[in-house]
């Protein structure tokens, strides 16, 4: 199947609730009209339309970056569908899209399936993010300090009170209340959870063996609840005194949320910021699909919970002309386009990682 998708995503979805019971007949007629008209209404693009699908984390960055790119290059538009990493990998493997995006690189099994479908797969880091630990402790404002082992113990359900000795030891100047801790986690599968559990696993062998790393895991704490999306977690934390949760960095910054300073590998307490996440990422220039974890990085200014999102393309797409366009778009997004990231509170890729991405894309053949 050759990837020509001029009509992809053009027709808006109609929500079922849109129709009331009484309007069913006229609605059916309208639906029929849409169905009949669909073949002819599609506008003819003068430019080539590339398609991508996957990670919703990348979506704000992509939609702005691809818009800018089309402004500068009138021959290309990119249609990116934010359907989740799982869907992105699936559509990429079945070659329904030109590129896929995932919060975690393809694992061996997924890589093999993709390789069978379209040959060698190239994967490059495209977006960088961090995870902020947010809290709602009665009587405590900004400035709570936490360490890796303490966060692990809280999420394991071993520390259940805010005035626990281990937390008090890190915060001698704060008067911590005798309040129950309520642990909040993401209920939906998410790259944010992946990075967070990656961090917890790197800190604690017990977490690694008991729970592990994943976009969804079996959260062990008895005092835990799950919220859907960053907004679900932050809403839960805001409304529940005594709660602790984790959200994606851009979300925390945009909503001016309260976040904890975390102790990094150099034993410094670091706030989650664009700079501190970028500093952590810059310590690992050779990041690649089989060695991609950047949690708990060394360096005095490194924030310990960070991770990349990845884009995957076939090294030799069947359509040479398209291949060239794909390469140009992705290369631009991974280098020049990164300046857009900061305006969205995303972390721009460090210069050395941009160069690595460019080098990998250089292997594309057409």
């Amino acid at each position, binding site marked *: 199947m050759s990837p020509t998708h001029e009509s992809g995503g053009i027709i808006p979805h109609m929500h079922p609730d849109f129709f009331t019971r009484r309007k069913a007949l006229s609605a059916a007629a309208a639906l029929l009209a849409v169905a009949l008209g669909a073949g002819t209404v599609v506008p003819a693009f003068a430019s080539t339309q590339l398609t991508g699908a996957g990670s919703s984390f990348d979506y704000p960055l992509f939609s702005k970056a691809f818009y800018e790119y089309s402004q500068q290059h009138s021959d290309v538009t990119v249609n990116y569908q934010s359907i989740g990493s*799982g869907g992105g990998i699936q559509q990429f493997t079945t070659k329904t899209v030109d590129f896929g995006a995932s919060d975690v690189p393809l694992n061996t099994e997924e890589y093999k399936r993709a390789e069978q479908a379209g040959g060698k797969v190239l994967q490059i880091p495209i977006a960088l993010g961090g995870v902020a630990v947010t809290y709602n402790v009665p009587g405590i404002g900004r400035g709570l300090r936490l360490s890796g082992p303490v966060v692990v113990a809280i999420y394991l359900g071993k520390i259940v009170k805010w005035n626990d000795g281990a937390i008090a030891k890190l915060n001698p100047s704060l008067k911590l209340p005798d309040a129950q801790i309520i642990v909040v986690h993401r*209920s939906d599968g998410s790259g944010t959870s992946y990075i967070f559990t990656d961090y917890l696993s790197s800190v604690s062998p017990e977490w690694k063996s008991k729970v592990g790393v994943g976009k969804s895991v079996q959260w062990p704490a008895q005092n835990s*609840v799950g919220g*859907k999306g960053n907004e679900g977690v932050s809403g839960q934390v805001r*409304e529940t005194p005594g709660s602790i949760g984790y959200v994606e960095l851009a979300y925390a910054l945009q909503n001016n949320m309260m976040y904890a300073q975390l102790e990094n590998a150099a034993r410094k307490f670091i706030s989650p910021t664009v700079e501190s996440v970028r500093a952590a990422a810059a310590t690992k220039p050779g990041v690649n699909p089989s060695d991609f974890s950047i949690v708990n990085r060394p360096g005095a200014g490194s924030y310990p919970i960070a991770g990349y999102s990845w884009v995957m393309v076939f090294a030799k797409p069947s359509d040479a002309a398209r291949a060239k366009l794909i390469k140009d778009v992705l290369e631009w997004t991974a280098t020049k386009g990164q300046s857009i990231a900061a305006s969205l509170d995303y972390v721009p890729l460090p210069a050395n990682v941009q160069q690595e991405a460019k080098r990998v894309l250089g292997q594309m053949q057409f």
Partner: protein
Amino acid sequence: MGETVVGSERVAPQSLDVFRPRYRAGDRLFSWALNLSTWIYLALILGLFVVLFAGSWLAIKSFGLHFLVDSSWDPVAGRFGALPFIFGTVVSSAIAIVIASVVGIAAAAYLAEFAPPLIARPLAFLIELLAAVPSVVYGLWGLFVLAPLMRTVIGPAIQSKLGWLPLFSGPIYGVGMLTASLILALMIVPTVAAISRDFIESVAVDQREAMLALGATRWETVRRVVLPAARPGIFGACVLAVGRALGETIATTMVIGNRPAISASLFAPGYTLASVIANEFTEATTQIYISTLIGLGLLLFVVSIVVNAAARILMHTVLRNVEER
């Protein structure tokens, strides 16, 4: 949910044979179209079942019937069980329909029988409007208004009186099974009220007049004549409402707490079949994981069918008993 018009009174079928000789092409086309629209539904349901079954085959093969009684849910290790989700779905919907049927039927009876038309009409309109509110709005309201209220006011009040029951024990998170049930109840009350009202209003006037002529009060008339006569319709309304509660996804997800655990306490977090599918499907990557989530979809389908069938059987027994009395 396909067709659930449980209570529609069947009009005595007029034999179409009388008209047969005068069938014209247009009539033929019309009846053919009607037939098709029914068969399409049947085909869709069958197709849905086949697709769900095929998609979940890997999970069915790997876990077997044990899947239904297993409570573990560990995507990292690939260990899956459906019990907490079945439990959450059935319990939240059951509580919701109990609350909603009482409130909804009472509201319908008030609107149809007692309220002056000046109040009844706008009120009825408002209730029907509530049915059209998108569920995410209910969810947001639940998360930001009901859940804090549950944690600070409703929960402690219940616990101070009934805390000795396991049903109301343990910490109150705000979100949880009870909050989700209340939101669901709120969402399905309009369905129960609006449809029940239509059926109550359609009860023949002479029946009421007969009862009143015998010296019965308004209340006695409603209780002993109107409601029993409208019972099949009201029952149908409740079945429709349960259908909506079982499949409700986003509102439930926002307030149920999303923990795959079975807890005696209604204050504890739970999880439903629809919620876990919505939560985890987009980011599920391994074959067995996806297959398991599709399997949960199949289970939801089966649960809906079982509940519908049970409701129908219940209704027929109730109606038969009424007739025999």
